[in-house]
């Protein structure tokens, strides 16, 4: 049997993943108690499979070794947090960035600065206990819906149809969903404002 590309570090990867998930659960509990609303719709976590990691090394022209898997590629640990409202994305981001033993290596705000195809999400690369990198994707339910459906269609459009038109229409859908997200946030803010316990 081939040795794991993660060498002896698999337990550390699992520990880093649990550390982040525990942190996310803490903030979730805290917000639920304070505001009686749940900031998280659902949360997915994974350690990149052996096969995917090796495939990614090959794709990037890297040697298939532990150094590539842990130091060059930085999404061996991955968490996707699907939030309820846009403001929840930033609340969770602030909380994660303030966690001890957790430094931010890189962050990309594709919500304020959407990708040209309409993709929106907040990407963070964290380093846990000065060793393990983790990629966190934060997005709303709408952004997640778009990403999931676009991902499915992206591979189908070469089969049939006008690629440019399809891309434009997918972008339009992203912009409509983004618009709805802000409307929902505004309605929520207004309800909280009227209740006198504004966020």
């Amino acid at each position, binding site marked *: 049997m081939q040795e794991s590309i993660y060498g002896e570090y698999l337990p550390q990867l699992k520990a880093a993943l649990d550390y982040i998930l525990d942190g996310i659960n803490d903030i979730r509990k805290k917000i639920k108690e304070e505001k009686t609303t749940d900031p998280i719709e659902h949360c997915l976590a994974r350690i990149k499979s052996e096969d995917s990691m090796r495939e990614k090394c090959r794709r990037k022209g890297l040697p298939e070794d532990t150094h590539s898997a842990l130091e060059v590629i930085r999404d061996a640990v991955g968490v996707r947090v699907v939030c309820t409202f846009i403001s929840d994305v930033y609340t969770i981001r602030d909380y994660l960035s303030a966690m001890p033993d957790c430094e931010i290596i890189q962050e990309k705000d594709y919500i*304020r600065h959407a990708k040209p195809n309409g993709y929106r999400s907040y990407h963070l690369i964290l380093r846990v206990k000065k060793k393990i990198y983790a990629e966190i994707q934060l997005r709303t339910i709408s952004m997640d819906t778009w990403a999931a459906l676009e991902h499915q269609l992206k591979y189908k459009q070469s089969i049939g149809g006008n690629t440019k038109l399809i891309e434009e229409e997918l972008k*339009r859908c992203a912009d409509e969903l983004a618009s709805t997200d802000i409307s929902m946030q505004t309605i929520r*803010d207004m309800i909280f404002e009227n209740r006198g316990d504004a966020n």
Partner: protein
Amino acid sequence: MKLLLAEDTRDLNRVITAALTHEGYAVDPAFDGEEALGLVNKNGYDTIILDIMMPKKNGLEVLHEIRGANIVTPVLMLTAKAEIDDRVEGLDAGADDYLTKPFAMKELFARVRALTRRKTQYTEQQLSFADFTLNNDKFEMSSENSVRLSVKEFELMQTLILNSTHYIDTNYILEHVWSGVPDAGPDTVWLYISYLRGKLNAITSKAVITGERNGSFRLEEQ
């Protein structure tokens, strides 16, 4: 640009048709009211020129039928009599303008230009303010990012851009954006102002809407 000219005096019809064609319009001539109606129902026109005194159906009858069929094409009425009643009746029936015979060809051209211009400028125009644009065909508001607006959000933003030199109050907005919507009130205006504030922020624009709930609002550059 396609025009319909309904004028029963053959010589005059021929002269006007030739002159307008020379100006670059495509002109369909009609010589009585029924023929004019037949053409209106068959083709799309940018402006319709109707003489009032015509056989079979007069200009006012044709106008009533056109507007009754929900055709909103601009209509210019021609009248031989300078009588006020004809003009009033024509305008009330949905005519956009009138011209009293005899008229100078130059004036006819100017009025046709005014009637056709209004429609094209209104629909093709892309409004902009500070660093963002409002695209009329796509209902899209864009700066670095773009979002799609709902109809009322779009109309409210259009109103704000067109009035950006001064404050407009909640009542003005209600009368201009929500006219004929009985349930709309100051809360509606406030909610939509709040939507647009969030959406300006989402497209990373420097523009902001200033103003307080139930008060007056204005677009400003930060």
